[in-house]
């Protein structure tokens, strides 16, 4: 403590404010077209002194002396350094940047220029996705950031996405990155009670976002210490700009439909297949009509219906969005007020998301040295949700119903109740599942520029989220029968966060630039929930539990955690070419065992800008060249709030409650640790017309949380300990080119990433995905590799399904099943891609612009669990996928589809039969727009008017035969990645929109 104070005093002493000779420089900043640029940041180099340009592009700033250098930066434009050279008036032209080298990048607790970075950070500017009708802002990252693999999981609105930065870093803790919005770590993990994870991030309006930075390597992320192993996503919201009050208004609307529907048997085909299947059953020559009657209790076999059940799962989707933002202010106070309304109707019946967000971002300069501000947001969203993939009430499961059964029961005129499986259209008529969220992510901050070199910033933020789940199932529904059921769940989450930090910049002599940060962070999180279920409602018009005769379940609970952290970072630039970065964070958390409460997470990095060396300085080809490397440590603290404790909990006897030990804890239990090496190369050619980056990373994670078995004779069966290890290695490649500049502009950016995951230590144990799933975790293999019997097609002689044993012999199913376990199971797939990435092309000409983004994933396997029921050559009466018609019927026939034998399980065991290549290439986003000429718009007193048509997921190219290759069923354990089970496909969305500003 004392030393720290001394240090601070020393720092101050050495910098003792030399304010002599300071004077004011003013000027104007314009873009290449000669229009003034408002909002450009102007900073005196090597100080924290800065200002922004007004609406007329003008600025004025105090500089310490005639040899000062001003740095001009603005999102999307190349940063420029301009020596003052004793001038008092400076005019500057900023060029739109294609390359990102000059841009400002938000790092944890500060900002940096791209060319000075030694860590690996991906950045997305709002304009890259601003006209895209993305469901939730994370969608925008997909295919645009190298090293970030995103799988939306399904086409359900408001569902959680899988976001993996540089592979998979944990077996039992979370694998999602840490999300930080305006300095506040926010709630991003599901908080609701449904099996399907809800997505708290879907409450955030993409329109409010200025930029998204993803911290990937240790040098970038270690400043977030114990929470950074899965990467950190920093979201910065838009801020106000001084100048004339500017009003922007945007509106779009459109339609959505499934990216693809599967083909199913029609009534005639269904009868044909099942007639054959019944006749060839192992249970003798059966009569299909009789069997169908005994299974369904109907004589629908003899009816004339031909119902397209699979299409009943879908509805025409739509999206409407309107946003308004007003910014303005003067030299002392700037503001942004915005509101967005977004209304999405999903492609899946009963699915909708309606979101209303409001925001006020305000900053006031009390003096040259003191400023305050606040970012306030209020959000309300209503998500009409659909059930879990494996629920009979999941609309997609309608595709299992026989086409020969009617949708409407002719006897009652109502929805048919006598279907083979539950006709879940009844659920939609007779129930609801609403999740309403109220949320505010807000902060207040103050910054005191103590001297020109030293500033202190204090931020206090909250993330408050209130989720209200209301469900009702009427008396006709499967779950609500016979008297109706109401369910209510209220979850209240409050995260509070305090950041206090000093920033210091100093240039020592000509060749030593220092940029340092020192601070602390405190965060607490608290979750409270109350739920109840009532049954016995008077009739279906009563849906609230107040009307329920019986309360069958009620519960309330509360949980909390806290982090206290101290961090420091120093970046040094030597001779304008050598970059040295050091950072460290000390993280303490209530989640860590009392013997291991604090962890230290250091990182170091080096960079060398070769292009600033004399031998390259004036090179005609190479305009920029930097090599960099980093090594450091991060942690994963998503291990549960009380996993380290030994606990006693309630346990009941009749009307009495007692207590029993519920777990034995390891007081050393703590974060999972990742050590990461990163080496990279950045270069620019032909004056940065071509710029590229290559990164290689090697992540070694140790101390994975696993359950160690204990002798139960002592009273406990397992203890959770930090015992497992895994590694992730991979490459990332980014190429950005300005193919054409001038009137017709064409730029391209391309990214490609790989990761290779390997679990290296499981303490000898394995985790299996379940009886129908193929996912598995074991030593020496990637997380979630597919393990099971390997399908070998059909024996042409007899129509039997065949499988490979582990020696590669092909056996008929019965012989195969007689083998011992170890002869039957083998590796049958890998759910991880060989590589993935995106390709973005942007064209503009005379006000027209076209933006096309392709996204691809290559080499991953998918497993369709529903194959057991829907692609199993008529083993039971589920409707079958159309390919099953190619079944074996006579000796000698070569086919992949075994002979249909009703109830006999021919080819129906868990196997690679339903494993397929999940590679795909998708036209993820396309926007074609036209900016009206200023001569026209100015007549209408408009600053700008942009009209566009935009599309999401316009085309998908894949060999996967299921609905959509971007799939991840969620009801199964996390081990089972790349599994599909009646999972709804993605939506193709086409919108028309306009943006106007005044």
């Amino acid at each position, binding site marked *: 403590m004392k030393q720290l104070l001394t240090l601070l005093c020393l720092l*101050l002493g050495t910098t003792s404010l030399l304010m002599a000779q300071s004077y004011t420089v003013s000027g104007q900043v314009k873009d290449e077209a000669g229009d003034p640029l408002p909002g450009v940041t102007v900073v005196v180099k090597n100080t924290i002194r800065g200002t922004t340009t007004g609406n007329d592009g003008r600025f004025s700033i105090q500089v310490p002396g005639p040899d000062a250098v001003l740095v001009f930066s603005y999102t999307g434009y190349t940063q420029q350094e301009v020596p003052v050279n004793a001038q008092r008036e400076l005019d500057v032209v900023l060029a739109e940047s294609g390359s990102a080298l000059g841009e400002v990048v938000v790092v944890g607790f500060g900002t940096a220029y791209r060319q000075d970075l030694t860590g690996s950070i991906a950045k997305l500017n709002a304009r890259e996705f601003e006209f895209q009708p993305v469901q939730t802002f994370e969608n925008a990252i997909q295919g645009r950031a190298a090293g970030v693999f995103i799988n939306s999981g399904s086409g359900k609105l408001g569902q959680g996405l899988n976001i993996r930065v540089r592979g998979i870093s944990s077996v039992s803790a979370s694998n999602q990155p840490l999300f930080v919005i305006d300095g506040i770590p926010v709630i991003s993990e599901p908080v609701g009670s449904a099996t399907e994870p809800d997505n708290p991030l879907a409450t955030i309006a993409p329109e409010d976002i200025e930029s998204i930075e993803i911290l990937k390597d240790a040098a970038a992320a270690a400043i977030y210490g114990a929470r950074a192993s899965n990467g950190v996503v920093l979201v910065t919201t838009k801020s106000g700009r001084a100048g004339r009050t500017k009003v922007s208004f945007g509106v779009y609307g459109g339609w959505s439909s499934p990216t693809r529907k599967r083909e199913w048997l029609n009534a005639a085909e269904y009868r044909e297949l099942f007639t054959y299947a019944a006749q060839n059953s192992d249970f003798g020559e059966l009569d299909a009509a009789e069997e169908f009657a005994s299974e369904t209790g109907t004589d629908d076999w003899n009816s004339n219906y031909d119902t397209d059940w699979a299409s009943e799962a879908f509805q025409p989707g739509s999206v409407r969005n309107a946003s308004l933002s007003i910014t303005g202010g003067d030299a002392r106070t700037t503001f942004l007020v915005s509101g967005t309304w977004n209304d999405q109707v999903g492609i899946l019946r009963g699915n909708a998301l309606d979101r209303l967000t409001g925001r006020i971002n305000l900053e006031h300069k009390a003096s040259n040295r003191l400023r305050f501000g606040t970012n306030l947001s209020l959000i309300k969203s209503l998500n009409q949700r659909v059930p879990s993939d494996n629920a009979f009430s999941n609309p997609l499961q309608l595709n299992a119903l026989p086409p020969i059964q009617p949708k409407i029961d002719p006897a009652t005129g109502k929805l048919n109740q006598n279907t083979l499986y539950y006709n879940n259209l009844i659920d939609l008529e007779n129930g609801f599942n609403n999740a309403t969220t109220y949320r505010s992510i807000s902060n207040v901050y103050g910054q005191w520029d103590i001297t020109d070199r030293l500033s202190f910033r*204090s931020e206090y933020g909250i993330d408050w989220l209130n989720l209200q789940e209301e469900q009702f199932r009427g008396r006709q529904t499967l779950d609500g029968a016979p008297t109706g059921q109401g369910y209510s769940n209220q979850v209240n989450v409050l995260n509070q966060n305090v950041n206090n930090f000093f920033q210091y910049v100093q240039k020592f002599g000509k060749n030593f630039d220092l940029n340092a940060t020192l601070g602390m962070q405190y965060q607490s999180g608290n979750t409270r929930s109350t739920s109840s279920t009532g049954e016995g409602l008077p009739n279906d018009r009563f849906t609230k539990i107040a009307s329920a005769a019986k309360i069958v379940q009620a519960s309330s*609970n509360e949980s909390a955690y806290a982090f206290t952290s101290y961090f420091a970072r120093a970046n040094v630039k030597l001779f304008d070419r050598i970059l040295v970065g050091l950072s460290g964070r000390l993280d303490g958390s209530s989640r860590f065992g009392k013997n291991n409460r604090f962890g230290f997470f250091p990182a170091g990095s080096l960079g060398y800008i070769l292009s600033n060396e004399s031998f390259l300085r004036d090179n005609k080809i190479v305009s920029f060249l930097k090599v960099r490397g980093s090594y450091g440590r991060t942690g994963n603290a998503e291990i549960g709030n009380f996993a380290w404790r*030994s606990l006693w909990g309630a346990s*009941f006897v009749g009307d*009495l409650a007692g207590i029993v030990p519920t777990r034995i804890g390891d007081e050393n239990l703590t974060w999972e640790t990742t050590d990461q090496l990163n080496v990279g190369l950045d270069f620019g050619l032909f004056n940065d017309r071509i710029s590229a980056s290559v990164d290689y990373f090697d992540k070694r994670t140790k101390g994975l949380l696993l359950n160690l078995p204990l*002798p139960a004779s002592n009273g406990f069966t397992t203890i959770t300990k930090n015992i497992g290890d895994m590694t992730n290695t991979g490459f990332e490649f980014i190429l950005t080119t300005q193919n054409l500049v001038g009137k017709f502009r064409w730029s391209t950016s391309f990214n490609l990433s790989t990761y290779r995951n390997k679990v290296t230590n499981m303490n000898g144990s394995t985790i299996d995905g379940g009886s129908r799933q193929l996912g598995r975790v074991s030593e020496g293999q990637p997380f979630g590799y597919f393990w099971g019997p390997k399908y070998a097609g059909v024996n042409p002689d007899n129509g039997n399904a065949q499988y490979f044993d582990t020696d590669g012999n092909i056996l008929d199913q019965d012989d195969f099943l007689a083998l011992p376990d170890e002869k039957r199971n083998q590796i049958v797939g890998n759910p991880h891609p060989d590589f993935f990435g995106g390709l973005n092309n942007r064209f503009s000409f005379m006000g027209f612009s076209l933006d096309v983004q392709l996204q691809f994933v290559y080499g991953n396997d998918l497993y369709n669990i529903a194959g057991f029921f829907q692609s199993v050559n008529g083993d039971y009466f589920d409707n079958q996928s159309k390919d099953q018609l190619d079944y074996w019927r006579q000796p000698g026939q070569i086919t992949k589809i075994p002979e249909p034998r009703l109830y006999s399980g021919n080819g129906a065991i868990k196997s690679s039969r339903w494993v397929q290549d999940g590679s795909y290439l998708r036209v993820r986003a396309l926007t074609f727009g036209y900016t009206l000429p200023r001569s026209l718009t100015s007549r209408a007193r408009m600053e700008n008017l942009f009209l566009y048509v935009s599309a999401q997921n316009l085309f998908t190219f894949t060999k996967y035969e299921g609905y959509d290759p971007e799939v991840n069923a969620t009801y199964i354990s996390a081990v089972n990645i790349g599994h599909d089970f009646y999972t709804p496909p993605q939506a193709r969305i086409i919108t028309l929109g306009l943006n106007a500003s005044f």
Partner: protein
Amino acid sequence: MKKILILISAITALFFAGCIKELDIQPLDAIDASIALETAEDLESAIVGAYSIMHSGALYGTNLNLVPELLGSADYCQWRGTFQSYRQIMNKNMTIDNAEATRTWIAAYRAINVANNVLANSGKIQDAAARAALEAEAKFIRGILHFELVRLYAKPWNAPNTGPKSRLGVPIMLTPATNEATASIKVRRNTIEEVYAQVIKDLRDAEAALPEAREGNNRFRATKYTAKAFLSRVYLQQQNYAQALQKAQEVIESGKYRLNASVTSAFRNKFTSETIFELYMNEQNNAGTANDGLTTFYASLPGIGRSDVRILAPFVNLYQPDDERLTELIYIGTGRRPGSRQTGKWTQFEQNIPVIRLAEMYLTRAECNFRLGSNVGNTPADDINLLRRRARTTSLTTVTLDDILKERSLELCFEGLRIHDLKRTGRSTGTFAFDSPKLVLPIPEREIRANSELEQNEGY
């Protein structure tokens, strides 16, 4: 400058000021083990907790009843449910990962650990009498569970000694696991003799200090006479007829219990005057309504149970037609898998489950008197006829040992005594001799893996 320095100092002080204390966050739906057992009330809660484990399906809620019944299934009952674990028990071809053998072992030692935790902390109870009573209750729980374990996971007491392995009992656990080190201890199996000695010691201690009676909601908890009734069972299992007789006699003589007027009463009402030890159930907290619980497995009534266990004809035919234990307590199923004979003892999910009834004490007294040639309390024939009269069937004028043992099975069928009675009397079940290794549960595979010191049973 000076002002700035002061300000910086102030900020810095704020900065590093104790947020560390804030890191000590306690859970609210559970209590940290280090502070869970502080007061007399806490320990009382822990004892109730131990009972809650005993009430679960892994112990008295299902398995300590159903497993002994299925082990002695020949000419008696049949498992026809889908659970492979129970099917294996009926077929006497259990695998080492048999789910029932696994969960019963785990739950019994969980409850024993709670009892040991209570004993280790009982010094915190100021009132000496209260302390003694709670210690007695903890020993009662520890005693009966070791008894259940040794009966199921080891050879019978009366099996011939064919070497050390044949006398392997179960580990005796007398100290609590409170941290990782104590939860990781690898113990060996004690001998059958050592386990029985410890069981008797615990139950003797319990008998001495348990209260005479319990009131209200606490009637599921052990009294002095519950301990005596269990001691009677233990001695009977050891063929120590004199002691078994004495304990049964003490229970009967106490006058605390009376036979109910009807044979069904104990199974339709809570805490009737006949039960000595009873599990306390209600609509929310019971042994199971779907995949567990006696009612689930034994019943077949509309919407209740699934008739996984049906009664076989040879057993039903042992009853005289007028016997109300036949007419009132055996019925033809009308729910799932209808049409088979079901026991009428377990028909409601929320109904309490009697574990020891006074009827058993009469039967034990009769058997011991007969074997010892004594008439303590009453003659064997009178004791037997007491039960037969209650069942509205004809009395016997003279009784043989076979009559007494038959009466015992007619009265106590499907109450978890079947295989234990067969074993102690040296009778076989089907082709399996009383000391067949196939009638002994395997030490769970997971346990052998976690504890290299444990020896597996013969035949596994």
